[in-house]
């Protein structure tokens, strides 16, 4: 494997970079310490030094999006850097939007359930201590309301997402 490495590097390097994610290059082997790069902004994760690929994490508990830790190659060209920064920005912006969206949804859903239960004269918890819920047909009013209220917000998001992908 080690003997093949120089040949492989010459042949595979450009392909590897293109297809395994931006900025990938076969880096020289080092001891298995964590790299000195800044940890991922989303979590404290640091990929191992040997790795020359991007790393993808578990879904964020608010946005459900999986954060990607982008690999920074040693001789990264300005264009590659621009692409990486753009991807990072898009990721953060997406993370913010969806985290906010999901939290708003959950909060407004709770408020809706509370107000409906109050209107019906019911408590938030049933006799057995379980959380009282409304059935799907009652919730349908909330879903319709939430969708129409957030329609413009989604339109802006979708327009910007198209622009980001185009850029």
């Amino acid at each position: 494997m080690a003997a093949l490495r120089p040949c492989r590097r010459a042949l595979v390097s450009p392909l590897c970079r293109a297809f395994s994610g931006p900025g990938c290059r076969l880096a020289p082997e080092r001891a298995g310490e964590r790299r000195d790069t800044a940890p991922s902004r989303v979590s404290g994760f640091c990929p191992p030094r040997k790795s020359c690929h991007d790393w993808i994490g578990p879904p964020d508990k608010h946005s459900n999006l999986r954060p990607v830790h982008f690999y920074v190659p040693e001789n990264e060209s300005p264009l590659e850097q621009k692409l990486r920064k753009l991807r990072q920005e898009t990721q953060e912006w997406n993370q913010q939007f969806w985290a906010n969206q999901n939290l708003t949804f959950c909060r407004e859903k709770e408020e809706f359930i509370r107000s409906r239960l109050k209107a019906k004269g019911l408590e938030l918890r049933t006799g057995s201590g379980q959380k009282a819920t409304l059935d799907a047909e009652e919730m349908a009013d909330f879903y319709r309301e939430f969708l129409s209220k957030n329609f413009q917000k989604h339109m802006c998001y979708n327009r910007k997402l198209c622009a980001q992908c185009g850029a």
Partner: protein
Amino acid sequence: MAASPHTLSSRLLTGWVGGCVWYLEGRAMQESPREFMHLFRSVRKQWMTFQHFTFLRRMYVTQLNRSLNQQVKRKPEPTASPFLERSSLAQAKAETCAMRPLPPPHLPLSRKPNDKELLELESASVIEGSLDVGRETKDEKQWKEMKLHLDDLPGVLARLSKIKLTALVVSTTSAGFALAPGPFDLPCFLLTFVGTGLASCAANSINQFFEVPFDSNMNRTKNRPLVRGQISPLLAVSFATCCAVPGVALLTWGVNPLTGALGVFNIFLYTCCYTPLKKISIANTWVGAVVGAIPPVMGWTAATGSLDAGAFLLGGILYSWQFPHFNALSWGLREDYSRGGYCMMSVTHPALCRRVALRHCLALIGLSAAAPVLDVTTWTFPAISLPINLYISYLGFRFYVDADRKSSRKLFFCSLWHLPLFLLLMLTCKRPPGATCAGGEPRG
């Protein structure tokens, strides 16, 4: 291109996941009494304090719950997936909220700790420290390197191209080819089969590429390859291109230009019209129905080279079928659609959703009667297909009236077997060559 973005396979997958959750919970319950007894015996042997024992017990339960958490996705609110049992989710959630690790027992500062208590404190702090490290390591373990593994590639590409949906699309194309008049040309059939399959793979891959953040937020779609990072976006788009170009080329030059044009048009309709329209207007459902209607038309044009009445009839049948299928499915996904910003009838116009589903169930009866009139089948076909058409119409009516999850599920599952059976009956009643419906002069 797609008959519909939603298939039996996604339902099976979520059912399988739900089954896994049940199995793991059951195993945990069975194991805990045995391990608890073992713990109790070691406690008595080592003469630990009661406080330390309580701490260790809580630590054990916390670790057990953490392993359960790995299987049940933690969400800010309990949003029940349509196909996971509500009780298993509630039970898992209760366990995750109930337990928290406690700090080790503190000694009063005034008293100098003796050897035995020092040992207890040390072991408690080691356990607490290892808990923290355990938590971090576990978090880090969930990070995966985005490296291309050639072994996994076929599976990943199959999921990316929605291979089961593609198979359904290709089978409707084959039905269109088989129902077209004229002798059965095997080479032409194979070229149509492969070409349509490749075009469908391309369209499905592009659709997934566009929808990563949305797919991440819906239970049904959160395990797709691009969402999980199993394939890079660049590779996904390259794959789509490598399917679209040969697929369309095969259809255009191997079959005929009309079929090729329909293939290109359908890819465009699915990726550039249907996919963005999903977030803009409920009209997306009608566009999606056209997308599903085109493959059998392609099969017909591949066999005959022309867009005649029979092609439109088959297209009409698939078009009508989409509505009871999709509208019933979408009834159970309203929460995800609302949160994700998808404009679907089931959310915005529920009465219209059910009305349209019923309307198109009844349309299928009319279309099956039109088949012999257009010389596609004999008059046996509307007669023998009447029972299944009446049944789906009955379920459509029940859905319209009851408007609940039970009736929507029944209609959805009926649509899954109704279509293949309907097409099979059509094939068995195909008009024999040289016969006409009025028994007049045979067709040339």
